């Protein structure tokens, strides 16, 4: 099962210190390298900061464009990993290795399974 690890980081004023930024990069590098060596890394990427975000929704069938991310929260989506894991426990172990401080404050990881596009009727329960 592929799991997406959504990195929510707390944006603090001034952002991370140069030292923090270096540590974050090194910690991501280590996590990516380890997952890659295990052959479970599907992809991992940072997102550009929320000031670059644009939200699109349909209003009366026409796209309505607004500036910024959909939800105005302290914790912002900052990047993601997609890893191929046996089960949720393995995904949790990996999530615990992913740093969340790239925006300056510690955040959290949300784990979501990626079931893929349905190709056949879903199995029941």
């Amino acid at each position: 099962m592929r799991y997406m690890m959504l990195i929510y980081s707390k944006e603090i004023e001034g952002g991370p210190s140069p030292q923090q930024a270096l540590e974050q990069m090194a910690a991501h590098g280590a996590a990516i390298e380890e997952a890659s060596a295990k052959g479970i890394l599907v992809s991992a990427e940072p997102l550009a900061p929320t000031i670059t975000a644009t939200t699109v929704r349909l209003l009366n069938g026409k796209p309505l464009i607004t500036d910024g991310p959909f939800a105005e929260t302290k914790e912002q989506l900052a990047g993601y990993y997609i890893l191929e894991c046996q089960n949720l426990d393995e995904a949790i172990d990996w999530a615990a290795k992913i740093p969340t401080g790239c925006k300056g404050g510690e955040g959290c990881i949300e784990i979501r399974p990626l079931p893929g596009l349905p190709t056949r009727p879903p199995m029941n329960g």
Partner: protein
Amino acid sequence: MADIRAAVESVFRQESGRIIAGLIRMSGSFDRAEEAMQEAFASALSVWPDQGIPSNPGAWIMTAAHRKLIDAARKESTRRKKQDAVSYDVPSSFEAEIEEPAMHFPDERLRLIFTCCHPALNNEAQVALTLRTLGGLSTPEIAKAFLLPEATLAQRLVRAKRKIHEARIPYEEPSPDHLPERLASVQAVIYLIFNEGYAASSGDDLVRHDLCAEAIRLGRVLCELLPHESESMGLLALMLLHDSRRKARMVGGELVTLEEQDRSLWCQAAIAEGLQLAEKALKIGPAGPYQLQAAIAALHSEAKAPGETDWPQISSLYEKLLEWNPSPVVALNRAVAIAMWQGYDEGLRRVDALGASGALDRYYLFHAARADLLRRLYRTAEAAEAYRRAVDLTTNAVERNFLMRRLAAIKL
């Protein structure tokens, strides 16, 4: 026929947890397992009156349910083959197990209990799922015990099972490095069930006691499955010792304080078992929060009269408990214990010191504890004021009645 029905119900009560645990392992699905088990119990009701009750009824049910699983998997496989070219894999172990007699089917309840109490599920889901599968309570029974509409509870169960299935919460015992935290999660769920039944509330007394009994049963199962865990023993001891006072604690729908309880109503068998377990746990160690709370309950149980209570020892146990759980609530309990042997003045001083930050302002037990100490110090006006604060804050009818009675008594 009444005999048969009673026999079937007794097998359900005693063995459904083990049966469902095994069926989930075989089928990889909570829903398929439940369906197969229900069908097997239905078969028992129709077959046993003619053939007699089998010598090992649990194994009979397991074998019957296992066959139903295989039938269902075959049907599903055929249906899918017809539907499209992609075949649905029936796990090969499934077919291989057809002929295997189920007399000694392995006990998979540990996998089940760890899955139901997985920290990725919310507390409500953990409780509902644990009671439904390991407890063998029906959905209406659980809904009634939690004073919830049946549909709400059913929805909770559906969501929990979906999460297990779709997020792939594994049906496994945790690895040794994860065991402590996962076991703590199981213990917390069992204690939550117990407290739900124990909290004096306006709900149906009888049904709520079912929850206590069920929690104690689950506590026993946990101790049986992982026999060397001292905190599981501590938890079971704690529940038994609290439950031993059930008859004395509520009289005519009114709450009776520990101090005023008729100690001859305490269940001595539960106390003896609780004390023995607490002692056994202590030998294994280390003493965690459940054991410390059990030790406190044990000291109360051992006192023949309120005046014989070993308050210095209880105070020091609360002190140790504070190291595990540095909450104002535990600190409040310690202050009250200290008041009982160092003087109400000293107790009140400590209670007021705890309240100074304002963190306990909305907590009714803080005001109730203050009120009780002020009452003992004959500071009637202040006591009445504190009781009124407590009354305003409690949401529980039984507790409110108790506080009102106290308030009325000091006004006389």
